[in-house]
């Protein structure tokens, strides 16, 4: 347990250092080269985070996804891994300054959340629950990339409209690129979330006898799912894109984020 906690703290430190390295060129010209270390620091953080999760599972002797803090920690871990993969492919530095703070915030919040084990029917603690949690965690991780791309889109758009170069810590990608990453990541995130919600309904039914409890947090999740689904359908079927698509995506992610905090 102690080793796990130490690794988690190391992960948090690495994420924070990665973020600082990414914005270092902003502080002085001399620190320009520091930015090159940001992805490596993030990767170091992800490695520590992985060890922390494994150690936690080992010490609890179960899958470490049974409490709210555990799920939030796994979410933060997944979003960092997905961001590193996307960064590897597209080399978009602005992800360092969007995803890392998000991962840090989620990780810190997870520390203050109540740690009781969530009630799940014993019969369901099988593959379905694991699939449900995996789909949700990967889906939200991918959606955090969509959110970052959409946020940067709106920032670049505002700079262009105001006729002065947009500034957000690091050199920003073009609108076209933000839009493309937003589209592709949503294309991954939405089916995963769909699968997560359907399996969640099945689990719920076995727990309460009804697939849908109509609690506000669940309604929020479904609303977010519908909203993101409409955005994705309009993007794919109708070629829709641009600022409004980005704004609706940000809204959708915010709803999902609130839902996750209210697990």
């Amino acid at each position: 347990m102690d080793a796990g906690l130490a690794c988690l703290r190391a992960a948090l430190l690495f994420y924070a250092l990665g973020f600082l390295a990414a914005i270092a060129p902003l502080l002085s010209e001399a620190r320009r080269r520091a930015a090159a270390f940001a992805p490596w620091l993030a990767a170091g953080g992800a490695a520590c985070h992985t060890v922390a999760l494994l150690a936690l599972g080992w010490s609890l002797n179960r899958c470490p996804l049974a409490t709210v803090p555990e799920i939030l920690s796994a979410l933060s871990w997944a979003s960092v891994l997905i961001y590193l993969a996307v960064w590897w492919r597209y080399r978009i530095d602005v992800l360092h300054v969007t995803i890392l703070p998000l991962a840090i915030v989620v990780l810190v919040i997870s520390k203050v959340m109540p740690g009781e084990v969530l009630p799940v029917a014993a019969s369901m603690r099988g593959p379905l629950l694991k699939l449900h949690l995996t789909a949700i965690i990967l889906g939200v991780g991918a959606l955090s990339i969509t959110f970052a791309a959409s946020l940067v889109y709106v920032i670049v758009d505002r700079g262009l409209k105001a006729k002065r170069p947009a500034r957000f810590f690091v050199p920003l990608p073009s609108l076209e690129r933000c839009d493309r990453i937003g589209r592709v990541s949503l294309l991954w995130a939405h089916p995963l979330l769909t699968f997560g919600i359907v399996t969640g309904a099945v689990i719920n039914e076995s727990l309460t006898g009804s697939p849908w409890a109509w609690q506000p947090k669940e309604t929020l999740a479904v609303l977010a799912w519908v909203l993101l689904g409409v955005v994705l359908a309009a993007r794919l079927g109708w070629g829709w894109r641009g600022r409004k698509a980005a704004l609706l995506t940000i809204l959708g992610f915010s709803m999902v984020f609130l839902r996750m905090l209210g697990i």
Partner: protein
Amino acid sequence: MSILLYGLNHESAPLELRERLVVPEGDLVAAVGRLAGSSGVEEGLILSTCNRTELLVHGPTASAEHTVKRFLLDSGRATSEELERHCYLHADRDAVRHLFRVASSLDSMIVGEPQILGQIKEAYAAAHAAGGLKSVLDSLLQRAFSVAKKVRTETGIAKAPVSIAHAAAARAHEIFGDLAHSAVLVVGAGKMARIAAQHVAANGVRTVRVLNRSYQRAAELALELHGTSVSWDRLSEELVRADVVIVSTGAPHHIVTLEDAAPIARQRRGRPLFFVDIAMPRNVDPRVNDLDNVYVYDIDDLKGVAEAGLRERRQEALAAEQIVERETTAYLDWLRSLEVTPTIVDLRSHLHALGAAELERFRARLGPLTPGQQQALEEFETALMDKVLHHPIQALKRSTARPGAGTLIAFLREAFGLDGRGPGTRKS
């Protein structure tokens, strides 16, 4: 007599006022003719580009000043308060320096851009055609061309020519990333449209289409840009398809209005549309920029991007300013030397004529002289007069290097009676 320069530029006046005061290319010769023909002006030239409208005149100080101010006011396109607030008036040294800075592209919105020199040459040709140029302004303009060339070759100011076109291309990159998948639409086939399109297309774009009221010119430009030409009535359809639209026509009104653009933006379903409006006056309604995913940049807007280039080349600009300063001094010295030259000539001929006349008068009293004696006498006269002339002429020459040559000229002409009558009246 003064050289005066009166006008406004991109720093002193807003775009909207500059637009109103632009003298259209077709009217330029007639306008210079009117300016040069005004009372109190001996020579005149009008430089009118999208970034400046300047009147350059030579004439008696007070009347020329009155004339240039009236000239812009009489055009009826600006109020006297606006002109008072946004125009500058430079005289003599300041006017010469300003013209040299403009020609060297130091006063350009985008320092180092090469178009301004061509525009001054056009203004020069128009002033020539209108008969507005005589010795002073003609020599001044010739000098300005050589200063511009000197600055261009001796400093690095033109080595990284960040032009409006470059700035536009940079903005296009912020929107579209690399432009390989972008469709460029060029509206208008004039010089500015061509320069901008060349810069943007140099990045390798998917397609270039050219649209112009005269199809012939559109076809020519399209050929040059390896694109296709499109007839004018298909503007709306082309705007739906294009990504980057370079607009530069001579039309004095908006070609793309908010009402035109709104349905086009809807049809594009959020695909970004980038208007580069380098026309003067503007051809795209600035309100089009308020539409979602549509970005309209005019020349003033592109300035921000261009200023980054200025910082890098500040050192070069400093070297260029020094050249301008030196050349201004050299030109004014030369101009003043023109002022003193007639007086020096008059002084010489007057005193030598006096000496020759007195020699003639006294020679009879000396009786018959041998040719040797005759020659010695003549040499004596020449040597004496040269001695007398030495200090006044040196003083005149020295006076060209500082202001106030006129006072010395007037004094010497008075003291030696150069403008009066009497024995040895000047021959010239």
